[in-house]
C-alpha cells in the first residue's frame, strides 16, 4: 500500500477496497494501529475489537477475490457506541453495572452494517447509559475533544464523535435521545444524524428512553452519513416501533438543487445561542438563500418547553428501563443479607451519580399522586411541541437552528452543574420529542478555534430534504483548517 486511507471518506475507502487498490485488511490494520498509538490521549474507545475487525476485513477481501458483492461499506472501519449489543463482546454502556457483560446477540444495526462489509473497530465511550452531554459521565474514562484535549467532545456519543473527528474511523454509530449524536457532532466538527423515530431498528440498543432513542450515523461529510443511514435504516420485525415505509435514496440528495425549498430559522432556538454560533447559523442560511432556497425566520413557540418536558419523560422511561440492572441475572452483583439489600448494594455501587439522579427523577415523576402533575403534563407538552412544529412545517420544508448553544467547553466546566449541562441540549431535544429527523453540519470554527454545528430539522420522514439542505450548507461552509491533536 503506497498511500494511507486514514482521513479518506467512507465511500472512497469502499471504492478502493472494491477495486482492489487496497485490501480491507490493510485498511483495518492501519486504523487500528493509529488508534492504538493515539487513543491513550483521546479515550474515544472503551475497547478495540481487533479480532473481530480483522476477521471481518478478511471476509470482505475473500468476497472480492471470489467475485461476490462485498457491500456498500466494503472494508470501511466503523466505531460502535458501547450501548449497542455486540455478540460475545463486552457491552457496558460505560457503566460499572455492566462491566464485562457480553450479550448473546448482535443489535439489528450491526447485522446490517456487517452484511454491507463494514469493519467494526471497537466500542466507543459514552456518558453512562447515554445520560450526559460531555462524555464526562462515563464510569471508565473521559473522552477528549480531538481539536483540543482540554475540552469535551460533547455527549453522550462523545467517543464515536471523537473517533470520526480524529480520523480513527471514517464512520461511527451513535444513539440520540435528546441530542446525543448531533451535539457531539457539532462540538467535534463532523456530521451527525438523528433519523426519524422508527426509521432505524432499536433492537440491541440498550435503552435509555425508549420513546426518544434513535440510532444514527457520524461521518466526515453528508454523503457518507447518508450512505450509512441507507445501510442501517428499514423495517425490523424485532422492533414494534420500527416503520414500514419506502425509504428515499438519501445519497442521491447530496448535490441536488435546493431551488424553491423553504427554510425557516427558528427564532426561539437562535436567541439563547452564543453570538459566534448565531452568526454561523445566519451565514449558513445566507448560503442557502444564495443557492436558491427561500429563507425566513419562523417562531416555533412550544420548543422552549422541550427541555422541561424531556427531563420528565426521559428519566421516567429510564427509571423503568434501568430497573433490570438489579444484580440478579447479569452484571454487577454485590451480595447483601437479603434480596432487597442485594438490589440496593448492587445498584448503589453499579450506577454513577447522573444515572442515579435521573432514576430518582423518573421514579418520582411516575409516582402515584404525582403522575398527572409531572409525567402526564410532560406528555401534553410533547403533544404541544408536535403541533407547534406541524404549524411551522405548513410553511417550511426544513428548519434551521444551532445544534448546540456554544462550542466545546472545558472539561469540568459544567460537571458540577447538571442544569447548565442539560442546557447543552436545548436545541436538539424538541426534535426527539416530536420524533422528527435532524442533523448537525459543521460550519467553520468559532473564536476559540473550536467547531460550530448548524442543525437542519425536517418533519417526520423528511430526510431527503434534510440531506439536500445539509449538503448545500456543507458545500459552501468554511473549511475546518485546524489539525487534530495527533496531526
Amino acid at each position, binding site marked *: 500500500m503506497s498511500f494511507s486511507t486514514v482521513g479518506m471518506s467512507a465511500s472512497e475507502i469502499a471504492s478502493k477496497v472494491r477495486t482492489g487498490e487496497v485490501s480491507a485488511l490493510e485498511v483495518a490494520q492501519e486504523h487500528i494501529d493509529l488508534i492504538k498509538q493515539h487513543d491513550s490521549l483521546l479515550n474515544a474507545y472503551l475497547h478495540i475489537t481487533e479480532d473481530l475487525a480483522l476477521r471481518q476485513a478478511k471476509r470482505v477481501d475473500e468476497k472480492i477475490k471470489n467475485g461476490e458483492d462485498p457491500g456498500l461499506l466494503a472494508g470501511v472501519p466503523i466505531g460502535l457506541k458501547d450501548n449497542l449489543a455486540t455478540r460475545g463482546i463486552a457491552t457496558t454502556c460505560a457503566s460499572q453495572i455492566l462491566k464485562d457483560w457480553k450479550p448473546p446477540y448482535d443489535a439489528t444495526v450491526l447485522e446490517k452494517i456487517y452484511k454491507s462489509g463494514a469493519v467494526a473497530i471497537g466500542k466507543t465511550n459514552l456518558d453512562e447509559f447515554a445520560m450526559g452531554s460531555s462524555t464526562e459521565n462515563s464510569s471508565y474514562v473521559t473522552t477528549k475533544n480531538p481539536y483540543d484535549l482540554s475540552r469535551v467532545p460533547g455527549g453522550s456519543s462523545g467517543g464515536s464523535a471523537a473517533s470520526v473527528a480524529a480520523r480513527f474511523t471514517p464512520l461511527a454509530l451513535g444513539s440520540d435521545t435528546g441530542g446525543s449524536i448531533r451535539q457531539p457532532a457539532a462540538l467535534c466538527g463532523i456530521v451527525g444524524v438523528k433519523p426519524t423515530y422508527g426509521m432505524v431498528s432499536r433492537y440491541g440498543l440498550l435503552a435509555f428512553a425508549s420513546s426518544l432513542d434513535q440510532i444514527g450515523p457520524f461521518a466526515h461529510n453528508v454523503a457518507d452519513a447518508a450512505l450509512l443511514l441507507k445501510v442501517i435504516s428499514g423495517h425490523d420485525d424485532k422492533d414494534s416501533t420500527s416503520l414500514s415505509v419506502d425509504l428515499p435514496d438519501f445519497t442521491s440528495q447530496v448535490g441536488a438543487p435546493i431551488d424553491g425549498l423553504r427554510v425557516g430559522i427558528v427564532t426561539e432556538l437562535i436567541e439563547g445561542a452564543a453570538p459566534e454560533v448565531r452568526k454561523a447559523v445566519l451565514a449558513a442560511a445566507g448560503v442557502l438563500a444564495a443557492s436558491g432556497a427561500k429563507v425566513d425566520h419562523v417562531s416555533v413557540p412550544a420548543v422552549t418547553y422541550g427541555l422541561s418536558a424531556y427531563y420528565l419523560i426521559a428519566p421516567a422511561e429510564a427509571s423503568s428501563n434501568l430497573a433490570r440492572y438489579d444484580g440478579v441475572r447479569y452484571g454487577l452483583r454485590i451480595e447483601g443479607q437479603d434480596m432487597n439489600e442485594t438490589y440496593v448494594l448492587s445498584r448503589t455501587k453499579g450506577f454513577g451519580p447522573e444515572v442515579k439522579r435521573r432514576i430518582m427523577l423518573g421514579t418520582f415523576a411516575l409516582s*402515584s399522586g404525582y403522575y398527572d402533575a409531572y409525567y402526564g403534563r410532560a406528555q401534553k407538552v410533547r403533544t404541544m411541541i408536535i403541533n407547534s412544529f406541524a404549524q411551522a412545517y405548513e410553511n417550511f420544508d426544513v428548519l434551521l437552528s444551532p445544534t448546540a448553544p456554544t462550542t466545546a467547553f472545558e472539561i469540568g466546566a459544567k460537571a458540577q452543574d447538571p442544569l447548565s449541562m442539560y442546557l447543552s441540549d436545548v436545541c436538539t431535544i424538541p426534535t426527539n420529542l416530536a420524533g422528527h429527523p435532524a442533523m448537525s453540519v459543521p460550519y467553520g470554527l468559532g473564536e476559540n478555534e473550536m467547531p460550530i454545528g448548524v442543525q437542519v430539522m425536517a418533519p417526520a420522514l423528511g430526510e431527503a430534504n434534510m440531506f439536500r439542505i445539509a449538503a448545500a450548507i456543507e458545500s459552501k461552509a468554511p473549511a475546518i483548517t485546524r489539525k487534530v491533536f495527533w496531526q
Partner: protein
Amino acid sequence: MVELSTVKPEEFIPGWEMVIGLEVHCELKTQTKLFCGCRNTFGAEPNTNVCPVCLGLPGSLPVINEKAVELAIRIGLSLNCEIIESIFHRKNYFYPDMPKDYQISQYERAINENGFLDLPITGKQVRIERAHIEEDTGKSTHLGGEGGRIHGATHSLVDYNRAGIPLVEIVSAPDLRSSDEAREYVAELRSILLSCGASDGKMEEGSLRVDANVSVRRSGSDQFGTRCEIKNLNSLRSLTRAIAYEARRQVELIESGGAVIQQTRHFNEDQGITSAMRSKEEAYDYRYFPEPDLVPLGFTSEQIEEIRSHIGMLPAQRRQRLLGFFEASPTESTYDQVVTAVSLSLDDLVVAAIESGADPRLALARATNEIAGEIERIDSVSSTNFAALVKLESEGKLSATQAKKVLSQMLETGSSPLEIAKSLGFEALDESATEEFLDQVISNSPSEWERFKLGEDQLSGFFVGQVMKLSRGKADGKVVTGLLQAKRAI
C-alpha cells in the same frame, strides 16, 4: 382435576353477607410466548425455554404475538365484552422472577371491557369489568425457609421458562355473594375459556389461577367492607375453602371489635387458613406508564367478526343443545347433569352417543356419574366406544351394573365395550340359547307354567329369574319376557 359443584350453598354466619370479586389469570393456548418466539409449554427443564426477549436482556424488545391477541379477543367476545383500541402499560416493581423488573400489562384501555357472564345454576349475571392481556412472570422456588415462602429462605431459584407466557386476566365486578357462587363462576368461566379455544383450563398446571377479593358486610347493607385479596388459588376446592375461611375470619374480627386491614393474603392449603403477605401501606407503587416499546392494538369490526367466527359453541349453547334431547321442562337433576356434562366438556361425547341411537337419559347419567368420577382418564374413551356402551345398555344387552363395570374398564384400558363385556362374560345370550334355557325351566316347573298360561302374569318374574339363574345372568330379561308371551299365545 375439577371438582363438581355438588355442595349446596353453605349457611354463612347469620346477619352477614360475603362480597367477592375474582381475578382469574388464564394462560393462552398459543404456540409461542407473548413477546418472543420461545415455545409456550409446561414442564420443560428450567431455563431452557428462554431467549434475550423473555429474559429481558439489555437491548431486547417485545413484539406482540398476534395469535395471543386473537385469543384474548375470543375471550372478550365470549364474555360479551366491548373490544376497544387498547394499549400496553408497564407495571414496575422489583422481584427476581420478573426479568425486566416490570411487567408488560394493560392498565388503562384494556382490550376487553364491560362484559358479563351468566351463572348456569343460580342464573345470576356477573359483570366482567375487563379482560386484559399481560405477560406471565418466571417462577421462584424459595429454599431453606418454611413452607416454600421467601421469608426465612436461605436462597431462591428462579425458572424463567414461564416468563412471557401470554395471560389474559379476567376481572369480575364484586358481584359474587358466596363461595359457591365463586366456584360456579370459575367453573363456568373455565368452560367458556375451553369452549372458545383460548385455554386448556388446566388448573393443576397453573394455566388457570385465581385471586379472590373478599370482604364482608351486614346483611342488607349496600356499603362495601374493607377487602383482602387472597392470591394464587389453584383449584376450585382451594377457592371455596379460602373464601369461606377468609370471610369467617373477617366477621369474627369485626364482631370482636377489630377492623379488617386491607391486605394481600396467602392461602395455606394444608392448614386451610389465610395469612397476611403485605398490607396496603407496604403495597407497591407500580408507577404504571404506557409501554413505549409497543404500539396500540386496534381492530376493524370486520376483523372482530372474523375472530368471532372462529369461536366454537359456548357452554350456554352446549347446554341448550343437550337439553334439546329431553322434555321441555327438565327435572332439576337432569339440568344439573347437563351443567356438569358441559362444564367437564363431556357434552360432545353424550350428544354423539344419543345421536347414534343411545338413550339420552342413560348417556347423560353414564357420563356425569361414571366418567366424571374418573375424568382424568377421559382420553381413553372414544366417542364411538361410549356410544356403543350406552346402546348396549339401552337395548338391554347389558344390565346397569354390568354397564358400569364395563365403562370402568373402558376408562382403564381404552378397549371397546364388546371386548370388555365378552372378557367379563357379560355377553348376552342369543335368542335360541335363551329359548333353550326357558324350555328347560318350563319343563322343570309344569304347574307354574300352567298357572301362567291361565293368566297369572306375576309369574313372569319367576320364569325370568329362573332363566337368569340357569344362564348365570347372561340372558337378557327382555328377551325372556318376549319369549314367554310368544309361547303362551301358542
